């Protein structure tokens, strides 16, 4: 198989490629991929299925547009992560709708909850998206040369995002087993650093996790919650919040309170979207795509 064909094959089969390779013994090709040390995935966030107000009367439509955009990517992502607030009010019917739409993604899906998904109880969220390898909601895995952590900072939600001692212990143990040269990628709904505390856009016990991330060469922390793209670098850690697929929120401090922001109808798609991320050993490339065509 020529390399060009091989790359096309990767595009077609996504995560299946490693199996294909090991069963056919095309070991050079696999090493060539490993030498590139890159993995690409897509982040989407804050779909708020069930929301039906003037800021976006058709959140189902904009979620479908998001998925159409991802499914049309020439190279399919290894996986798609939804960083929470899949639903607006955590109603089982809203989860059913969301699950059906998200089920049309070609790539595998990872979903973590936002506070809107666990109002009162996380039961409906877990019924829709429970993973056998994540009984408490948080989990980690290795893929494409990187180490991924999917965290939950919306249980016991008090003033800000909160991880809780049990989850922080898990993170510290999990990270202690990683080499400092391994790229680390962390997902959580609420920003893990103090992005804008007056609006609760911070994780009150996030500092222990950030401390455990300090020794790594390259860390990427991806969050949702604030319905807008904010990028921030602090030493070895690169933070980026994602656009919503449903509606924007005001920039920090530009309104009395956070909440749905009404923009002109013609502008709405330009502030909604998803992002593709490529993680290589030395660098993370983050590319945001709006729904505006």
């Amino acid at each position: 198989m020529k390399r060009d064909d091989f790359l096309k094959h990767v595009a077609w089969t996504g995560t299946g490629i490693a199996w294909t390779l090991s069963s056919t013994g095309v070991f050079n090709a696999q090493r060539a991929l490993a030498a590139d040390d890159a993995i690409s995935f897509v982040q989407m966030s804050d779909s708020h299925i069930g929301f039906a107000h003037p800021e976006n009367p058709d959140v189902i439509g904009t979620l479908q547009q998001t998925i159409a955009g991802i499914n049309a990517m020439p190279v399919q992502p290894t996986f798609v992560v939804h960083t929470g607030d899949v639903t607006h009010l955590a109603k089982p019917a809203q989860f059913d709708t969301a699950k059906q739409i998200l089920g049309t993604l070609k790539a595998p899906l990872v979903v973590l909850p936002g506070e809107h998904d666990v109002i009162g109880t996380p039961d409906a969220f877990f019924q829709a998206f429970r993973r056998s390898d994540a009984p408490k909601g948080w989990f980690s895995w290795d893929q494409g040369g990187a180490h991924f952590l999917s965290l939950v900072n919306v249980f016991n939600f008090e003033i800000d995002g909160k991880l809780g001692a049990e989850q922080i212990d898990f993170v510290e143990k999990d990270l202690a087993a990683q080499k400092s040269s391994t790229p680390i990628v962390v997902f959580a709904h609420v920003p893990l650093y103090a992005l804008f505390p007056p609006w609760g856009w911070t994780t009150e016990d996030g500092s222990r996790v950030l401390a455990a991330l300090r020794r790594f060469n390259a860390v990427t922390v991806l969050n949702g919650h604030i319905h807008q793209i904010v990028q921030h670098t602090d030493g070895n850690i690169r933070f980026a919040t994602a656009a919503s697929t449903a509606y924007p929120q005001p920039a920090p401090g530009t309104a009395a309170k956070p909440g749905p922001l009404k923009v002109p109808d013609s502008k709405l798609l330009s502030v909604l979207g998803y992002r593709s991320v490529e993680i290589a050993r030395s660098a993370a490339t983050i590319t945001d795509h709006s729904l505006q065509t």
Partner: protein
Amino acid sequence: MADSSAGAGGGICTHMKAILIGLQVALLGIALTLGARAAAPTLLPAVATVHIKDFKYNPPALTVHVGDRVTFVNDDDEAHTVTATDKSFDSEGLDTAGTWQHVFTKPGTYHYFCELHPYMKATIIVLPGAAK
């Protein structure tokens, strides 16, 4: 192989399957929209109404009597909840323009908050005996 851990693979998606899912989603969307319209409940007579506006409960402290019904109205653009700290009552998610009513059957001081914005706090004091 660790590569399988992101979840079940998609990929084998026939056109027919996609069309069927599309139809189901469209029907669900219609059902949800109708459901939302039909959901406006008939309000029973209440002794007091708490309005939620600008991320505040107004009034922040309210005194009623055992047997009294209180109406909560969300006047904000953001969803909120009315949730007792002791979990003795819970509106669950209250959307914009949503209303919820609760009858207080036991005397006491009830602190409540919004599960989505827990810094929003207020109190209802329930006195024994009917006020009339």
